[in-house]
């Protein structure tokens, strides 16, 4: 028996072609699952009235640096245009969206809602489903400052994770202005503020204690700083936070969270939300609520977003804005960890034998009905086609020669009429899922 494997696998092995660190090929299951996640999200975003924006893959580095902090800027891939101008690959999609709206669509009616999907590029150590080129699908709601807009985006985040089939996720909700308010009262210089930011980001009890004693903090300031890491959970967080709030900035941050929670309750998503006032993670440009989505089975956030009211203004007419992005590579990891049924990526039927007009007509009918069909050429025997089908997990095999039409479904022989056999095969395909 001639076996396709013996034909293709030989002693000759082509030399490996290396890929740059953190750059990956996506094929088979991985590619199908990524597109599946993308199309699921695309559909959810459309239903919420968001329209697609396809940002350029690269633009001026200076533009992409607007409103971002040093970390994201250091992570940008930069290169020169022919005229010597510095270009960069987009490190996220929010900045191009802010540029689009601030500088081009500023005189169109607001609010405006956009979604995007595609790869972004960051020079970073690849960790937990975040290679250097990774895929995002996200939304931005521009021109609405209300807590209702914050809640809409949170509810859309919940709907997205639910539609992806991710079970038992949590959204962790913070408020950047609470931290900003704390900084106002502490009157730290930028270097010290950065140290505090980093300590809070890691909920580092050791560092916070050290900072309190290094800066000689006493009374309410000391209490606020040391209490902050405990201000998280689902119950009583806002009440506890109100007690340590030092100024109006902090108080109005809490007022905003209260309002967002109220609307979130109307959407029926309040029980998926954990508050965390020490959450200072995220982009430098965030000004109000910030949030991250965590799912069981994945040690890192699958979704992150927040309000950025000053970014659009950096490109033109100011507009408040809020949005989030889901990292598709991490959705794939979460699916895998949660044991989600893998996306079927292989063809469903392979047809071999003598390719007559009659056979090809049946093949066309199958394809028109949405069945994924491939033809196998040059096989002398049905066995060759069957072993090819087995290797590629193709359930259906049809062998046509002069005498008869033979068929197998999932390895078992099935009878087929010699004419109009496509209907029969369609029945088998429909009998299984997808």
């Amino acid at each position: 028996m001639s076996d396709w494997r013996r034909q293709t696998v030989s002693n000759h092995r082509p030399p490996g072609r290396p890929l740059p660190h953190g750059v990956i090929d996506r094929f088979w299951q991985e590619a199908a699952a990524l597109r599946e996640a993308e199309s699921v999200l695309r559909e959810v975003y459309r239903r919420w009235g968001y329209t697609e924006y396809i940002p350029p893959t690269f633009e001026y580095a200076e533009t992409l640096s607007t409103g971002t902090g040093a970390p994201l800027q250091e992570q940008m891939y930069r290169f020169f245009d022919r005229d010597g101008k510095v270009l960069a690959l987009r490190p996220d999609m929010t900045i191009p969206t802010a540029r689009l709206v601030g500088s081009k669509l500023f005189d169109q009616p607001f609010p405006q809602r956009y979604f995007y999907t595609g790869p972004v590029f960051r020079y970073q150590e690849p960790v937990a489903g975040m290679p250097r080129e990774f895929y995002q699908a996200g939304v931005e709601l521009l021109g609405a400052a209300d807590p209702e807009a914050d809640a809409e985006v949170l509810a859309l985040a919940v709907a997205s994770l639910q539609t992806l089939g991710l079970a038992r996720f949590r959204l962790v909700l913070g408020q950047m202005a609470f931290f900003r308010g704390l900084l106002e009262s502490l009157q730290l210089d930028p270097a010290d503020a950065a140290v505090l930011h980093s300590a809070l980001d890691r909920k580092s009890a050791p560092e916070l204690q050290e900072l309190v004693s290094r800066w000689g903090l006493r009374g309410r300031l000391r209490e606020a700083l040391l209490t902050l890491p405990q201000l998280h959970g689902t119950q009583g967080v806002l009440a506890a936070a109100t007690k340590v709030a030092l100024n109006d900035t902090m108080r109005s941050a809490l007022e905003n969270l209260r309002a967002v929670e109220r609307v979130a309750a109307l959407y029926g998503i309040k029980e998926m939300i954990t508050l965390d006032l020490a959450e200072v993670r995220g982009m430098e440009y965030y000004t109000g609520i910030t949030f991250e989505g965590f799912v069981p089975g994945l040690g890192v956030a699958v979704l992150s977003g927040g309000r950025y009211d000053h970014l659009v203004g950096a490109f033109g007419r100011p507009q408040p804005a809020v949005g989030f992005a889901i990292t598709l590579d991490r959705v794939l990891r979460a699916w895998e960890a949660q044991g989600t049924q893998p996306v079927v990526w292989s063809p469903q039927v392979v047809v071999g034998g003598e390719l007559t007009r009659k056979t090809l007509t049946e093949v066309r009918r199958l394809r028109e009905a949405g069945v994924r069909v491939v033809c196998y050429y040059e096989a002398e025997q049905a066995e060759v086609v069957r072993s090819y089908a087995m290797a590629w997990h193709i359930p259906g095999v049809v062998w046509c020669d002069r005498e008869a039409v033979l068929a197998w479904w999932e390895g078992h022989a099935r009878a087929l009429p010699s004419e109009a056999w496509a209907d029969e095969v369609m029945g088998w395909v429909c009998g299984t899922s997808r």
Partner: protein
Amino acid sequence: MGVRNVSIGEEIRIALPKGRLEADARALFVAAGLMAENGPASRVLLWPGQEPGVAFLLAKPADVPVYVEHGVADLGVVGLDVLREGQYDVYEPMLLPFGHCRLSVAVPKDKVNTYHSLRLHPNPRVATKYPNLARAFFHARGVSPEIIPLSGSVELGPLVGLADVIVDLVQTGRTLRENGLVEVRVILHSQAVLIANRASYRLKEARVKAILERLQRAVK
């Protein structure tokens, strides 16, 4: 792919470091009632705790934050020296009262005067197990060191002429003295710290909080 075996249920997995901190870490969890007093032999790497839903695993110290960052362990015990040497995206909610030591710069006794001002040496050769912390320390002083990464017996470096200075952990200072070295700067005061995975901290919030409180009581 570290995320594959993340415990999906409510089990809390705690990573403990082999070696220097191991005995104290075990004692802490025994005191908190989370680990049986007669723990398994040290070759067992993964074993259940004193109560259902808690499990322990034993790892090389430098691997503890890796396990926790990827979520295969929810909590971990690690020295600040190891934690700061790498860049790990984990929470560090609690200091633990053991494993005290310092990461220091030490030089041969006869060169103490020469190294009185580190910044006067344009390109010192630095032997260390902590290349990142050592580099950052010298860079902050405008000095470009030549880092010589070693994985043990760092004190040997200056003796055999491999390095001018060393950056290493100092507990009592005895090893340094015995090798004719003198501590000239402290880079970091280290001790054990409890770390937590960012996702576990939310998804298993109640259990993590309960364990933190029990440890807090055991420490007092």
